[in-house]
């Protein structure tokens, strides 16, 4: 470690922790606390990387991540910022974008091509001559660029957390620390963030005269460490400023989104380089970089140094560095404006001072700095100073990216030589050197004043303090730009842009800040102009003859610093809904596919898909089969105005729908477009049960809630989509199968087509509707989700003697196609009206008011298209697919919406949306295949199977036995948790708890302190209706008065008023009246309806959950207060509450369909945090419940 200096006070390295890593194949020694760059500098290396375009050797510039000179890669990661990345012992780092290694990079010959690579080169070269385009493209793609993406490496799943605070302070320098301290003392909830590894900002490496021993900084940090209302986040940067004071803090562990009531921006300044020939040689660096090397890493930046002084403060900095061990031989004063006394002090310290000097060029030897040629003095005498280190102290630019994104504005302060904030939006405050403060005292006072103002805006009292005046002297050199007739003077080191490139841009007409940026790409590299923009503007001002204050500046957009894609991607959650039969389908060869959020079986294997569909088709048509239709939307509509709501929401009439019967219904929007269909059953005069299409369930519920609110109706809506499973049992022998399990009278005379009945099915409460979607005698059976798998299994067993088989969605689609039944959203699109879909007769003409009435009245007379059936025996008929076009006289006359090969017809049949005049049965149409060939087909009447519905009147043997069947012959006595089946043996075993089968993890980590438990066995009820209050009162249950926000807890049980006239009761274990009520038998009690809640129910115990909930939930949960919160958690709508008591913990109620997805997400998060899954008994042991 040839350049390592003796230990010093405040250094960041740990000399006891020495290790080595590889750089370009060579071993490098490092200490703990080193960055890769500091360790390389300590080893004496100056050339650390190659530049983006010309492959020039590059070394340290800022050592503060304000440049992208030193980008390295390993086998798994790329574009590592070596200036701020800690080396890993044994890792092998290489420079990115080299050909044959750093030292012998063949790409350096590109420098010779520089004359033909001016700015705007892409636009010119790619334009003319055109035949050269591929050659240029290949060359550029190969030569330019940064690190290569590691396609075979696995990127980490980084969490994205939400944090809510009163005050966010960005920057932990002098002013930031002062601001945070004031806020912390005032009791505010504060987050303080700094991009450096340790707080302190420039105080760490540029010791202020007033705090030369660092006492203030140490004392301040100690006080902040004591404050438990302050969170200090080091090594993370605030990457952007979004609406409502939302700032993403990006760190190695992902993104933390801070939502602050007020923000103090104490981001400081970026030191700026001077522009002169060869200013990019390794060895030329900013004075701040040298200070960091000396103070933080105890590394000598050079053996013979020269300092370029451009500000009055440069001399003091130089002498401070000399004190730290810098070998400084000369100061080249380019018009610093420093006092004569400063120069004398420097001379007294043995440093030669060249006054009134201009740097002509840096001289290279072996690609690295060897000297500086200057002209100095009134005689403009040229001289050469030998040096291996050139330190630029010429000024700074405010780090104002966040401030501008927040809506603030800057104005150029000519006296300071830099822009200062001129306007700030509410709740945003600037402090410190960003705000034009210079001295230590001024920065501290400014931080305190900003914090006081910010706290006042939050309504928190803090001692008022006055903001100090801004600095008056220049903080930057006015124009540290020294063009050279030949050779490159770099402005933007990222993009290899020189003064000449900017001159070209301006000459070619791109003469405003924004245009010059886009044409030359200045400031568009990885450091986003941090070291380039101000010099670029100075050059632009000079070239256009304007004042720097009026040329403007480019808009800094998010992100102010590049953010890894892995951090942006977050955890990549993918929500999947599973029906209660999901595990059964998978275990029995179900070919699962995605249907929206749902997973559904297309058919059941094994073997060929067409053969499977044909097999299942035959089972439905000839014997009996069953399909899982749990995905159907299901809604209870209950209350005095239930019928009025439906009459308004649907264009169909409900007047003739009597108790015990169902009818087909469809919904349109205000424009008369068909958006949903389903079945509506009238349970009672004031009670209906609706089904919707699988994809529209939440939308229909949302609309019904809207209409109820708009019309101020007395109605309660309960979505039961996930609480109930549904099975369609269809086929000529379906009645016989059902009869063996049910006490419902199934005789055709008492249970006709389109009727519904309630009763026991295998000992489970079931609602059964006679439907004909697939065109056979059929029963749609709705049972609680936890019992659905058991009922399905019972049906399979009872149907074995009748040849029962399961069938999938593809088979169902073919069956209904034969019946000509429309699938809304498949045969219809966002323009289809009921009249076009053949549903016109069901649009009520006489209803005074319903959604879409006006549009439908107009559309009724103006319908030009219609859905029609077609049939074809053409040889290529099998190639007809959905969405192929119908061609009539060379124009488009329609399109195919559904197609299939019908065993009933023995041909390919389908539906087309076609011009009305072509839709005559027997009319020939031509369907254009994907390759352009036309296939002839013939319009056919629908349905093409069982047109007179004779199949619904079938009286099969066995139906008479219905009344003789023993009810409850195969009684289901065990329910299933919705997460069951997710985890194969032997990692999980099953336990039975309160009649509910639960998954239990075998061998849970004994050391875990946080736990996830499945509590699906705990009974829960939903009580709705205007009589709900009275029913709860009669049960002796204390009920909350307000909707949503309030809840009543006893033990670990809960009553929440979850909606208007709706209560949710969750049983605890204390025996309170509410526990009994939560186990009450479902049914109607006067004006109240009691239903099983059937939800996923998890308990979250232990300290790990605070961080996990902060990640998965964007809403502030407000700590562990015992309130009910209906929130979105990991994309799921859930209810969340905190149980007080012996072991305070969180509870989550989610939909049963989300259960396994949510359980997986929670378990994965918990696993990362070292927690474990546990069983209900373990919960009892843990919580003492």
């Amino acid at each position, binding site marked *: 470690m040839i350049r390592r200096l003796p230990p010093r006070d405040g250094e960041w390295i740990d000399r006891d922790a020495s290790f080595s890593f590889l750089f370009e194949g060579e071993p490098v020694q490092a200490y703990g606390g080193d960055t890769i760059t500091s360790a390389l500098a300590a080893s004496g290396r100056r050339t650390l990387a190659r530049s983006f375009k010309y492959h020039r050797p590059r070394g340290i510039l800022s050592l503060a991540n304000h440049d992208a000179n030193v980008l390295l890669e390993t086998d798994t990661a790329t574009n590592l910022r070596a200036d701020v990345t800690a080396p890993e012992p044994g890792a092998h780092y290489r420079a990115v974008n080299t050909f044959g290694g750093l030292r012998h990079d063949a790409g350096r010959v590109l420098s010779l091509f520089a004359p033909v690579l001016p700015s705007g080169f892409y636009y010119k070269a790619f334009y003319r001559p055109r035949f050269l385009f591929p050659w240029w493209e290949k060359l550029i793609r190969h030569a330019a660029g940064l690190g290569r993406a590691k396609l075979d490496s696995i990127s980490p799943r980084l969490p994205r957390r939400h944090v*809510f605070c009163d005050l966010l302070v960005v920057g932990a320098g002098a002013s930031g620390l002062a601001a945070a301290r004031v806020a912390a003392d005032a009791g505010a909830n504060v987050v303080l963030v700094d991009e450096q590894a340790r707080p302190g900002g420039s105080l760490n490496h540029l010791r202020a005269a007033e705090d030369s021993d660092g006492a203030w900084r140490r004392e301040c940090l100690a006080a902040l460490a004591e404050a438990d209302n302050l969170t200090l986040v080091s090594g993370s940067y605030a990457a952007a400023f*979004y*609406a*409502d004071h*939302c700032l993403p803090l990006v760190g190695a562990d992902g993104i933390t*989104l801070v*939502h602050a009531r007020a923000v103090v921006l104490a981001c400081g300044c970026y030191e700026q380089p001077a522009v002169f020939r060869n200013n990019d040689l390794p060895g030329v660096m900013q004075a701040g970089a040298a200070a960091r090397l000396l103070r933080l890493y105890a590394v000598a930046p050079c053996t013979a140094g020269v300092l370029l002084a451009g500000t009055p403060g440069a001399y003091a900095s130089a002498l401070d560095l000399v004190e730290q061990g810098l070998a400084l031989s000369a100061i080249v004063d380019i018009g610093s404006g420093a006092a004569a006394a400063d120069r004398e002090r420097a001379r007294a310290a043995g440093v030669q001072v060249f006054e009134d000097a201009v740097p002509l060029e840096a001289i290279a030897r072996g690609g690295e700095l060897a000297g500086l040629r200057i002209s100095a003095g009134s005689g403009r005498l040229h001289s050469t100073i030998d040096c291996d280190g050139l330190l630029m102290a010429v000024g700074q630019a405010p780090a104002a990216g966040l401030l501008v994104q927040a809506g603030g504005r800057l104005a150029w302060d000519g006296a300071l030589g830099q822009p200062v904030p001129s306007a700030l939006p509410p709740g945003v405050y600037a402090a410190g050197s960003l705000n034009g403060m210079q001295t230590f005292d001024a920065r501290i006072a400014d931080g305190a004043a900003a914090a006081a103002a910010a706290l006042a805006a939050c309504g928190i009292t803090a001692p008022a303090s006055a903001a100090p005046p801004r600095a008056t002297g220049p903080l930057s050199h006015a124009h540290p730009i020294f063009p050279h007739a030949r050779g490159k003077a770099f402005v933007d080191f990222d993009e290899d842009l020189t003064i000449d490139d900017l001159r070209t841009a301006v000459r070619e007409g791109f003469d405003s800040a924004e245009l010059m940026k886009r044409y030359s790409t200045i400031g568009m590299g990885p450091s986003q102009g941090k070291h380039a923009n101000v010099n670029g503007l100075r050059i632009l001002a000079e070239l256009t003859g304007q004042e720097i204050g009026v040329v403007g500046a480019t808009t800094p957009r998010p992100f102010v610093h590049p953010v890894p894609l892995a951090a942006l991607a977050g955890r990549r959650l993918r929500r999947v809904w599973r029906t209660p039969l999901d595990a059964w389908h998978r275990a029995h060869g179900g070919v699962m596919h995605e249907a929206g959020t749902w997973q559904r079986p297309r058919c059941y294997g094994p073997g060929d898909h067409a053969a499977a569909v044909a097999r299942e088709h035959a089972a439905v048509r000839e014997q009996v089969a069953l399909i899982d239709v749990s995905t159907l939307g299901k809604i209870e509509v209950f209350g005095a105005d239930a019928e009025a709501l439906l009459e308004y929401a649907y264009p169909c009439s409900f007047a003739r729908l009597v108790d015990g019967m169902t009818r087909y219904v469809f919904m349109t929007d*205000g*424009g008369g477009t068909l958006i949903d269909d389903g079945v509506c059953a009238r349970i009672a005069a004031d009670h209906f049960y609706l089904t919707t299409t699988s994809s529209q369930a*939440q939308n229909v*519920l*949302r609309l019904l*809630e*809207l209409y*109820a*609110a*708009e019309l*101020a109706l*007395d109605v309660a*809506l309960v*979505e039961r989509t996930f609480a109930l499973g549904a099975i369609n049992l269809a086929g000529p022998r379906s009645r016989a199968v059902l009869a063996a399990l049910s006490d419902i009278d199934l005789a055709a005379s008492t249970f006709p087509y389109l009727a519904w009945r309630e009763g026991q099915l295998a000992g489970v409460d079931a609602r059964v509707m006679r439907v004909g979607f697939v065109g056979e005698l059929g029963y749609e059976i709705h049972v609680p989700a936890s019992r659905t798998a058991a009922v399905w299994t019972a049906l399979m067993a009872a149907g074995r003697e009748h040849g029962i088989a399961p069938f999938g969605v593809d088979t169902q689609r073919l069956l209904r196609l034969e019946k000509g039944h429309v699938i809304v959203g498949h045969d219809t699109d966002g323009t289809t009206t009921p009249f076009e879909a053949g549903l016109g007769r069901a649009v009520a003409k006489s209803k005074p008011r319903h959604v879409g009435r*006006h*549009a439908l009245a*107009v559309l009724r007379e103006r319908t030009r298209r219609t859905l029609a059936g077609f049939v074809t025996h053409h040889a290529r008929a099998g190639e007809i697919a959905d969405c192929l076009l119908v061609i009539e006289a060379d124009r488009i006359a329609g399109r195919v919406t559904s197609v299939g090969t019908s065993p009933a017809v023995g041909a390919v049949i389908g539906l087309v949306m076609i011009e009305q005049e072509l839709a005559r049965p027997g009319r020939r149409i031509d369907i254009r295949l994907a390759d352009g060939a036309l296939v002839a087909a013939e319009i056919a009447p629908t349905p093409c199977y069982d047109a007179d519905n004779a199949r619904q009147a079938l009286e099969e043997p066995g139906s008479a036995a219905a009344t003789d069947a023993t009810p409850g012959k195969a009684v289901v006595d065990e329910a299933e948790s919705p997460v069951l089946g997710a985890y194969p043996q032997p990692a999980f075993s099953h336990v039975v708890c309160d009649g509910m089968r639960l998954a239990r993890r075998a061998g849970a980590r004994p050391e875990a302190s946080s736990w996830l438990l499945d509590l699906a066995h705990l009974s829960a009820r939903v009580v709705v209706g205007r009589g709900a*209050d009275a029913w709860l009162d009669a049960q002796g249950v204390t009920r909350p*008065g*307000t*909707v*949503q*926000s309030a809840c009543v807890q006893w033990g670990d049980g809960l009553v929440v008023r*979850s*909606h*208007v*006239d709706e209560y949710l009761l969750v049983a605890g274990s204390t025996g309170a009246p509410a526990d009994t009520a939560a186990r009450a038998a479902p049914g109607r009690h006067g004006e109240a309806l009691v239903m099983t809640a059937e939800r996923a129910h998890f308990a979250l115990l232990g300290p790990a959950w605070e961080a996990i909930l902060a990640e998965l939930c*964007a*809403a*502030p949960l*407000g700590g562990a207060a015992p309130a009910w*919160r*209906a*929130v*979105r958690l990991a994309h799921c*709508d*859930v*209810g969340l509450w905190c149980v007080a008591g012996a072991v305070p913990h969180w509870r989550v109620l989610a939909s049963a369909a989300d259960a396994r997805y949510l359980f997986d997400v929670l378990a994965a998060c918990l696993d990362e945090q070292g927690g474990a899954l546990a069983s209900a008994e373990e919960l009892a042991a843990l919580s003492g419940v």
Partner: protein
Amino acid sequence: MKYADFPLLGRRPFTEFSISGVLEPEPAELGEWTAARWVFERTSVPRERVEWWYHGASRLWFLVRRDTGSDTILAIEPARTGSRS
């Protein structure tokens, strides 16, 4: 990320809501053209307006008075809390 304080719910991110447009009661008299305008015409002129916001987790609708010019929420009230709440 934008947030607002909602009655009954507390501070919530907008991402928990779906927005269904501006509150515009059905005009008393609807001819073909007035009906078409009522159904289809929407203006995006910056102004103060009342919007329907739906919160999926609680199934509650809110009426949100919002100034789209300054992008500020002026008032929020639940659309329906029942006769007895």
